[in-house]
């Protein structure tokens, strides 16, 4: 096993280089595509008839003139809406995007004159950019349709009527029908906010720079410098400590639960053990009960005046309350242990489900060969499990990096420490720290930086590990 790890690390630089080269080739392909599109646009103009050429300026004209009234009207409306939008709304925001606003809001004699709102400028500026991209794309589609329509008519066939188009919505274009609403939702509620926040990381949007009262502006990479600097009790060192704990936590949370969960599943599944359903049901209760109830309650159980301490004191096992939540190291260990309580039932269910799928003949041939329980486990059960749950482990690990609930509800990220900046505590993960910065400190710029860093970590782990885990590489061995 060790040499596999060694090989992995040695191969890292090679992987990185190859990854970068792939990225470069994608970018190259992208520009090539743009080039060919532009060439096509020029060609269509040169070879097109007058209806096509007018469509370059008045979208939808070509479709309308060729009898496809619905399409023509839709294109034209889109162009109209877009123009109105830019003229009366988006244009002004877009113009100020570079500065994020220069006119301060002033209050004189209890009369407030509102100046620029940096937040809205950023938000609507981004929205406008997307709108522009959408417009260019639609315009391009409009041109392409003209070209295709000309070809169809030339070859003597008919164009699709409005009725055909609507029919296609339920058939060949069904994907567009079904995806329209979800994609819109994702765009407005995920894409836009994320891009917004990523850009906020490059501004100084925080407590003292809040619109509409105050402006914020671009500050380049200085936030990243703050977060990643080293030395002292500032954000930099805090960041590395929080990061370290996040990774340690994710590791233990994932793998401890995995192996223990599997062991419990095997124990319950062992032949000769009765009442299998009962054991499983008892464990599964933990999943059924909403986490906030169980976690909040359990966190109180471990409090200084909680059940555990109370009874331990009563029984004389200790003479003062154990600092479960007040000492940094104790808190970390307690969280990992409690997480086992939460996590094992999930793993047990999955392990049970999978072990039922292991082909029985593997076990039978092992029995005939004379393998004992330990050998069977190591040579058949374990590899099969690892193979099937490889992707699950990966998602689980990443999920634990972002496991907000467990940390927040159990310890609130504490205990706090003077050595940690930004109100970070010993058990804070990157995302709970992010939450604190957002809700308590209104320090949006640093929160955004943390968010970006979490993304990078997740992306890197995904990319490097994904190709390594056995399930992707050795599929043939198992089939």
């Amino acid at each position: 096993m060790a040499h596999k790890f060694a090989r992995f690390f040695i191969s890292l630089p090679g992987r990185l280089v190859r990854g970068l080269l792939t990225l470069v080739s994608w970018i190259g392909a992208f520009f090539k595509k743009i080039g060919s599109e532009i060439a096509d646009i020029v060609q269509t103009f040169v070879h097109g008839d007058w209806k096509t050429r007018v469509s370059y300026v008045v979208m939808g004209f070509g479709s309308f003139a060729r009898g496809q009234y619905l399409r023509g009207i839709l294109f034209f409306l889109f162009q109209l809406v877009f123009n109105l939008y830019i003229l009366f709304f988006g244009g002004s925001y877009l113009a100020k995007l570079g500065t994020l606003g220069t006119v301060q809001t002033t209050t004189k004699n209890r009369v407030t004159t509102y100046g620029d709102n940096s937040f809205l400028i950023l938000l609507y500026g981004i929205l406008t950019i997307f709108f522009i991209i959408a417009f260019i794309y639609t315009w391009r589609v409009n041109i392409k349709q003209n070209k295709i329509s000309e070809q169809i008519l030339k070859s003597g066939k008919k164009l699709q009527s409005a009725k055909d188009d609507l029919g296609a919505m339920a058939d060949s274009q069904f994907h567009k029908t079904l995806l329209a609403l979800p994609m819109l939702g994702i765009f407005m509620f995920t894409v836009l906010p994320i891009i917004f926040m990523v850009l906020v990381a490059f501004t100084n949007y925080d407590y003292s720079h809040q619109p509409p009262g105050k402006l914020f502006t671009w500050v380049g990479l200085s936030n990243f410098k703050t977060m990643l600097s080293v030395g002292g009790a500032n954000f930099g060192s805090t960041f590395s400590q929080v990061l370290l704990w996040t990774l340690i936590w994710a590791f233990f949370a994932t793998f401890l639960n995995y192996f223990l969960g599997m062991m419990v599943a095997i124990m319950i599944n062992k032949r000769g053990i009765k009442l299998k359903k009962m054991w499983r049901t008892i464990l599964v209760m933990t999943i059924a009960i909403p986490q906030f109830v169980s976690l909040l309650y359990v966190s109180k159980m471990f409090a200084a005046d909680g059940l555990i301490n109370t009874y331990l004191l009563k029984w004389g096992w200790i003479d003062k309350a154990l600092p479960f939540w007040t000492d940094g190291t104790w808190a970390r260990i307690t969280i990992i242990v409690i997480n086992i309580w939460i996590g094992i039932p999930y793993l047990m269910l999955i392990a049970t489900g999978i072990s039922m799928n292991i082909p029985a003949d593997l076990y039978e041939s092992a029995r005939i060969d004379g393998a004992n329980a330990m050998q069977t486990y190591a040579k058949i059960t374990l590899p099969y499990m690892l193979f099937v749950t490889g992707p699950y482990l990966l998602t689980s690990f990443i999920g634990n990096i972002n496991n907000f609930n467990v940390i927040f509800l159990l310890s609130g990220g504490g205990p706090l420490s003077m050595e940690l900046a930004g109100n970070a505590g010993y058990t804070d993960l990157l995302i709970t720290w992010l939450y604190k910065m957002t809700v308590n400190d209104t320090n949006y710029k640093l929160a955004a930086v943390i968010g970006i860093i979490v993304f990078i970590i997740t992306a890197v782990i995904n990319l490097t590990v994904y190709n390594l885990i056995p399930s992707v590489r050795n599929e043939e061995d198992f089939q």
Partner: protein
Amino acid sequence: MAKEDRIPEVDIVVDHKAGVIREVHPPHKLRSRKGHERRVNASIYVVLTIISIIWLAPFVFLVLQSFRSYITENGGMVSYLIPKQFSLDNYRFLFQPESQYLRWYTNTLIIALFCAVIQTIMVLSVSYVLSRMRFRGRRFIMNMILVLGMFPGFLTMIALYFLLKQLGLTQQGAIPGLILIYVASSGMGYYISKGFFDTIPKSLDESARIDGATRFYVFKRIIMPLSKPIVIYTILMGFMGPWGDYVFASYVAFGKSESYNVAVGLFRWMNTRDLQGYFTRFCAGGVLVAIPITILFFILQRYYVEGVTGGAVKG
């Protein structure tokens, strides 16, 4: 799996080289295998019992302490477990208007119902399209969703809060606002449902298409009837989600306690008002939330396992 626990008296050994089958009388250790196995099983039973006690204990305690009246006894943290007197005062409190508990409960119920329905529609639409249809941009959408999923969810909250504020969907209007947040991007969670759809043979679709069915017809009349487990799983997931969300709910309803959901309300009781002894009332509130969810979960447990192992594990 072997149904018999008895070990045969002789071992049958296949001698490949000589091409024969031989009987071998068991060495001493084989005869004690029966006893050995019994010992192993016994220790497993012990371990399982301990585990069961540890796992169940918190809930037992929770229920016990919910019966400790905040009026007659102490409603905060005390040093004993079993109430001196079993009382329903805590539960009565929950139903009084000043506790707002009922309000929170109904809020969460409404949110959960809307989420269950709308989310299912969104998720199944996306999963179906990505599973059955091939079109330009399919890979792009799947990759984009993958990349977006790598950002911490809470990051979007800041921008969304202001967006919702513009639309008046915060604080007072937090309920619709929360529903919107939960369902709008729910299409991103297509992974498990798609895995399920992938197991339905494409030849069913193709055969229907040759017969003249539109894709919509195939979706409605063929795929959906075959997808009961995953539909139920998705509805279940959509329903159970909002009950436990603290982060988004607290942010959107900030300050307006009428708009809290149960998670936020109970959290406040536990953490800010605990000094006034809200602990036992929290227990009671928790029990009332846990019971229906747990029952629901058990009824539909087998769909859950099908959903998780069928989709997530097969990748």
